[in-house]
């Protein structure tokens, strides 16, 4: 599969996805847990620019030993893209929708070589 050069590794951030357009298709690229992931910037819901929304941790309900609800918390080990149009959330690591893991963001293979970032398209 052809590789496309996107940018220098140093240009990527781990807080905000960088958006690239390749042959009319937008791809969002972000550094995540020491790897780099790339997804098509189209939400499977109604087509929103999913990689351009906020990055939020998973929200958890905490129960006590009697299964009583105690409080909510953020789990910062699981970060999500939140689509800015309606709030669907996707695991940045895998692209799976939180509400239904059968639904996924369309993922691109990323190659990091000689301090440059490429995607296979």
């Amino acid at each position, binding site marked *: 599969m052809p590789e496309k050069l996107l940018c220098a590794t140093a240009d990527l951030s781990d807080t905000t996805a960088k958006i690239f357009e390749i042959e009319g298709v937008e791809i969002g690229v972000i550094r995540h847990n020491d790897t780099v992931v790339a997804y098509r910037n189209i939400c499977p819901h109604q087509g929103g620019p999913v990689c351009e*929304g906020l990055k939020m941790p998973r929200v958890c309900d905490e129960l006590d030993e009697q299964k009583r609800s105690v409080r909510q918390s953020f789990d910062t080990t699981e970060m999500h893209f939140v689509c800015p149009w309606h709030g669907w959330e996707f695991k940045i690591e895998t692209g799976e929708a939180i509400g239904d893991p059968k639904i996924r963001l369309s993922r691109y293979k990323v190659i990091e070589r000689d301090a440059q970032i490429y995607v296979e398209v």
Partner: protein
Amino acid sequence: MTMPQNPLNYSSDADPAIKEFDTTKLLKNARKQALERNYKDFFICDVDSHHYETEALPEILQYMDDPVLRHLGLSAGNVGRAGLIPQAIGSQDMAGRVTRYPGRSKETVPPTPHRDITLTRRWMDALGVDMACLFPTPMLLLATHPQPEVEVAMARAYNRWLCERILEEDKRMCSMVYLPINEPHEAERIIDEFAERKGVVGFLSTGYLKRPIHDNANMRIFSKLEEHGMPLGFHAVYNWSDSSLSQLNKFISVHALGFAFCNIIHMTNWVMNGMPERFPKLRTMWIESGLAWIPFLMQRLDNEYMMRTSDAPLLKKKPSDYMREMFYSSQPMELVDNREALEVTFKMINAETQLLYSSDYPHWDMDLPSTIYDLPFLGEQAKRDILGGNAQKLFNLAPTMSEWKLEARKAG
């Protein structure tokens, strides 16, 4: 006491999604959809969209007759009170996750036309919407204000402001203007004042009324609407203080049930009290409860009606037969894993003639025109009717196409 550290602020103003907010950029993928689907070839009308009228409150209050209420609304010492419009509890913006909420105030616009016109045009042009029926947002709960004179004064001032500052200025925008049904005499005066104004295509009843819709005090309102040939819209709303909803602990729960519940109550009263028989020429549109509630209610009411026709003697046919003659706005259409149910729903409500596309933009659960256009069980003509033709008929609209579509047509 040591305060817990809270370094997390995920929807801060510094996030580029909020700091650099721009409607056209946010909706660039919607514009792509509009181009790919050739929306330039046909008219799209959005029958339920919104603005935030409280952003223009000082302007609106200039249109208020009562100087004391006007002063109350404008007064600077208003810390700790909501002003004249009741505030809804809830988190439409999902704590800033839906970025157009926190971003809205950051968006820059030119000095003219009115900010609301610029912002509205931006999303309309992105979605491929040619004409939009514009409604307020916080005022959807105005009918719950304990002082009826406040509701009437706000309604009249808002309607005047809307007509003069927005509808007069842009023929792509129209509205079903606010009808204060809690005060029937004033509602009649409002119909007389606004029925002929430019861009007024009907009148709007908002969710929570102090008396049921079939109350005898309301009959002259409906006669007057019939005389003017103006449709009546029922815009649903949730009210967390409602005793039936107050057991729900989450916004998602109260939002999911509240809107449907609101229209279910009004529709049940409307039908079982024979309002369609009393006012056969009065057309009604039921707004913003999605669609799944309609087949549910049709089945429930028909089943009970056949056993208890004596409870509803004004009816000459089954409740569902009346409901099938009414109009419905489409959003928020239930779209997850239910194609078959949706298809049945479309059949049950005669969607090809009775359903009207609505976005509800800029609210968090907005629907794009593609929610209708991409349905595999609709033919091209049905899609176009739902997206625009049915609204054109109901509102007797002279369609005004958006400039970009006219230019795209010229360019071939």
